[in-house]
């Protein structure tokens, strides 16, 4: 085909404004409208192409409607196709003019060429003009009975189009029943598939008003229908197979032998070249075996290899979608994937959204046997050019450390990070180390097992000047450590004092909150050296414009006034291990997502927006969420989590969130009550 004229190739802003060109086209179209001269079709074709290309680049050519319809009397199929495209695009906006097209489309629906019959029927039903539906019923009815399967295929999906324009017309003409008959009897599987997809939609939306429709919808999931589809599954096109598999996933077999029959029948679908088919099959397998724990496990083993192959074959986009599903499975059953950890190693030029998923999976599958290798691999990413990924990987090391495998090696690694001079590496490591550190120290307290590490940590941390740390979180972590381990860090009071002196330069409220607590802690351990800093900090805190900082300073002040030993119990309570951190996604949300396997929500990791589940999940998990946020997001929590906050009563959390109160004194009071309680015990 000859390229169109140069003018249409150039994009905006040099784009033709349209006006002049359109009226010019109008004239030319008129000239050719009735012409039967040889070569007229070629000329028309060029004109049509121009029109369509204008339409494509967004110029309104709807004013040519009449002329286009006049020119459409032709036997040239390409001309017809262009005309159908044009008509389909503009009919909805010009219902009066659309009437003009009915005549020639209806005529084409009776053409002897099945392709033209099909195309015309498709276009006729795509006009989507409500007052023209009466003209659709006839051609559609004969289309469904057409001898050619292409026409029937088109007709089967056209019924759905009609239903969307006018549901009553569609139902009154008894089309659903005809579709059902075709679905169960047609030779051509594409016809069958289109009937299925149309019927599913029609019956689902009819079900609310009509009992018959809801019965029919149920009947789609009956054993004979499901088996009919399953037995023909290999004849279906790959896309139609997806449709059938989606249907089968909702089927509830009557007994176990049926489950095995279905799985045997579908097993080879796992090796299909089309990833969509493979995922749909996996969904069927998972759904069928959900109640059979041991078989469910075997299913995981069976689907592992196909999933891993899918990840490494297709394009980056396909691989990401599969990886998201794999991520879901890994998070649900990390043990089953612990020997496949190498598949989750990041490649250099993968996009960062892929790397992030892989890092999470590496964290999840870490166990005794592979921790060393995983941590070694993660450490290589810390020197990565991609800074967010470097951060994530250090964080991942910290998380693995909390899982308690091979702690020695990991602490060693984290300390190595601290010695790197990069700001972000230090930041992440500090946060992780502080978590880790508290953990290790507590382990020491409880087991007297790793004394060497706490001292090493202190030595390294002591060497970091607070001036070098800019990131608020890291600074907060550093200050927290200074307070927590002030008895072991020689110059802790003096470092804290210098930070207090620069109170006004400290913009982050989080850091100031930590500073207050750290200074108080330090004071309780080394009173003479810290007294001056404490006075200054409390004064500055009371004058602070931030409500939380002010409240906390006031609270500490009163607490100290009231009784120093109570203050001691509040601020330096006996330590408990920070053993489990609530994961970023609670398990129930994961289970819910699991029901949505092979849906979009998996790929971007959110629940479907229309679903009401979200609100219920949020309320039921609020406590977990908040508790998680405390030790993790703001290190303020760590201070308290040492005490008791990990077991917050839900009612309190609920109340807190409802009123939107952020005041930390609330928390502290709670702390106090708890402290008193533990004393009485």
């Amino acid at each position, binding site marked *: 085909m000859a390229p169109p004229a140069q003018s249409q190739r150039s994009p905006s802003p040099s784009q033709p404004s349209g006006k002049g060109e359109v009226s010019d086209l109008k004239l030319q179209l008129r000239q050719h409208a009735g012409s039967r001269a040889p070569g007229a079709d070629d000329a028309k074709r060029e004109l049509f192409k121009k029109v369509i290309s204008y339409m494509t680049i967004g110029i309104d050519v709807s004013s040519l409607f009449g002329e286009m319809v006049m020119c459409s009397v032709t036997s040239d199929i390409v001309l017809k*196709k262009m005309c159908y495209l044009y008509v389909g695009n503009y009919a909805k906006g010009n219902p009066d003019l659309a009437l003009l097209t009915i005549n020639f489309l209806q005529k084409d629906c009776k053409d002897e060429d099945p392709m033209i019959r099909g195309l015309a029927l498709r276009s006729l039903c795509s006009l989507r003009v409500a007052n023209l539906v009466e003209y659709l019923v006839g051609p559609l009815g004969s289309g469904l009975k057409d001898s050619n399967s292409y026409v029937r*295929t088109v007709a089967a999906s056209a019924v759905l189009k009609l239903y969307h324009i006018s549901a009553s017309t569609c139902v009154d003409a008894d089309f659903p029943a005809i579709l059902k008959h075709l679905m169960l009897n047609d030779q051509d599987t594409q016809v069958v598939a*289109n009937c299925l997809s149309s019927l599913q939609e029609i019956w689902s939306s009819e079900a609310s008003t009509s009992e018959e429709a809801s019965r029919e919808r149920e009947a789609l999931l009956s054993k004979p229908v499901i088996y009919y589809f399953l037995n023909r599954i290999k004849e279906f096109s790959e896309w139609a197979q997806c449709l059938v598999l989606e249907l089968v996933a909702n089927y509830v077999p009557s007994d176990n032998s049926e489950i095995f029959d279905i799985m045997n029948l579908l097993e080879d679908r796992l090796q299909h070249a089309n990833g969509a088919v*493979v995922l749909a099959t996996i969904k069927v397998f998972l759904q069928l075996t959900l109640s059979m724990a041991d078989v469910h496990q075997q299913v995981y083993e069976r689907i592992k290899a196909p999933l891993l192959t899918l990840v490494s074959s297709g394009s980056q*986009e396909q691989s990401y979608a599969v990886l998201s599903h794999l991520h879901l499975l890994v998070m649900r059953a990390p043990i089953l994937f612990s020997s496949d950890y190498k598949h989750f190693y990041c490649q250099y030029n993968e996009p*960062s959204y892929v790397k992030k998923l892989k890092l999470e999976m590496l964290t999840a599958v870490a166990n005794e046997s592979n921790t060393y290798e995983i941590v070694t691999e993660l450490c290589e990413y810390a020197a990565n050019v991609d800074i967010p990924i470097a951060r994530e990987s250090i964080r991942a090391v910290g998380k693995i450390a909390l899982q308690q495998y091979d702690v020695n090696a990991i602490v060693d690694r984290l300390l190595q990070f601290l010695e790197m001079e990069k700001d972000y590496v230090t930041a992440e490591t500090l946060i992780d180390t502080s978590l880790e550190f508290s953990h290790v120290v507590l382990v020491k307290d409880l087991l007297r097992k790793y004394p060497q590490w706490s001292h090493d940590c202190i030595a390294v941390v002591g060497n970091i000047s607070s001036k070098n740390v800019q990131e608020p979180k890291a600074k907060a972590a550093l200050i927290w450590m200074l307070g927590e381990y002030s008895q072991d860090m020689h110059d802790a009071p003096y470092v804290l004092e210098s930070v207090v002196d620069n109170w006004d330069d400290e913009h982050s409220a989080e850091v100031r909150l930590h500073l207050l607590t750290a200074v108080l802690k330090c004071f309780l351990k080394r009173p003479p050296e810290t007294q001056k800093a404490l006075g200054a900090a409390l004064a500055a805190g009371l004058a602070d414009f931030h409500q939380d900082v002010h409240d906390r300073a006031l609270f500490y002040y009163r607490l100290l006034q009231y009784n120093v030993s109570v203050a001691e119990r509040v601020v330096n309570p006996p330590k408990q291990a920070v053993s489990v951190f609530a994961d970023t996604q609670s398990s129930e949300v994961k289970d819910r997502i699991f029901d949505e396997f092979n*849906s979009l929500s998996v*790929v971007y990791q959110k629940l479907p927006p229309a679903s009401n589940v979200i609100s219920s999940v949020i309320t039921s998990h609020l406590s977990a969420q908040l508790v998680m946020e405390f030790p993790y997001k703001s290190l303020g929590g760590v201070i308290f989590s040492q005490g008791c906050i990990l077991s917050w009563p839900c009612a309190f959390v609920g109340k807190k969130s409802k009123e939107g109160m952020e005041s930390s004194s609330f928390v502290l009071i709670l702390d106090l009550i708890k402290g008193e309680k533990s004393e009485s015990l």
Partner: protein
Amino acid sequence: MLQCIFLLSDSGEVMLEKQLTGHRVDRSICDWFWEQTVSQADSTKLPPVIASPTHYIFQITREGITFLACTQVEMPPLMGIEFLCRVADVLSDYLGGLNEDVIKDNFVIVYELLDEMIDNGFPLTTEPNILREMIALPNIVSKVLGVVTGNSSNVSNTLPGATASCVPWRSTEPKHANNEVYVDLLEEMDAVINRDGILVKCEIYGEVEVNSHLSGLPDLTLSFANPSILNDVRFHPCVRFRPWESNNILSFVPPDGQFKLMSYRVKKLRSTPIYVKPQLTSDAGTCRLSVLVGIRSDPGKTIDSVTVQFQLPPCILSANLSSNHGTVSILANKTCSWSIGRIPKDKAPSLSGTLTLETGMERLHVFPTFQVGFRIMGVALSGLQIDTLDIKNLPSRPYKGFRALTQAGQYEVRS
């Protein structure tokens, strides 16, 4: 169910719009998408599925063209992504490559193809063989044919018989003057060598490509000498499952023309054909870099098109690199590429030089990853071997050809 497909040029201009359902998706979604793309520098940094305020968007990018699809309802994600990939493949097959001009010149064909590939938002057929029978290729041959026969339409007069046949991937009874079939083993080696020079991961992803020009309805059986090495396999729909299950034999009626018969994975390979040893030592604001390349285990055929590519860390101000073999070039975006070609027998190629760090930096903290490329003709490094290829149901003896090729896939050496 997809509601709309857009094709965007590399400047974000809408080149083509195809509404698929009654719900009309406004073009403004493309503007929204393009803003996201611009904010991320390019669309490859955006995930393939995005939730916009109004729609879910699927997007893939091929040769600078972004294929965008929108939906408002829940659907299997791969159905969207995989379909867009197929659209891109089919278009590139039809138009002989993808670029802005070729799409704009042939937009009518693109519309025609989309019309047959998807109806009402559900994919119909993406088999190139079937499509080719409905819509002719826009090539010289069909143009010449059009002139000679006086039939200027690019649409065949008959509908593909295959739509109704039980071999949907094969058009009915093609006829070839020369019956021939070629089987190619194409393998890609993915490997990661860590900072300590240890091979942490080495895997082969392979494909069996078949190019079949056989008349009638031939029935082929292909067997391997050592199928047990394959870790996982995926098949073209034409492959019968049972013979593979019981005897590891591929039995199939092939589509006409080129197709991917099977893909496979071979895990846990012990060694790589070449070694790449980078070394970086930095001190007082400069960094010495040296990279040595050589043959580790000789595959028995020439290793060629050897390249080493790496990104200089952002803190490097300038680089002075030279090699004793091949050419070194540093591009504007600090990508350094060393193309070695064939590894000489008498000496080991090496690259060396100095990198100047930003002022104030003593030592290097971010280390580059070296991406290695190579090609080896005539060898499938996984060791997979084709044993026999039998062809039944063909009157004359066809010509059978076999080839193998291994190249580097994601082959990276960290420093």
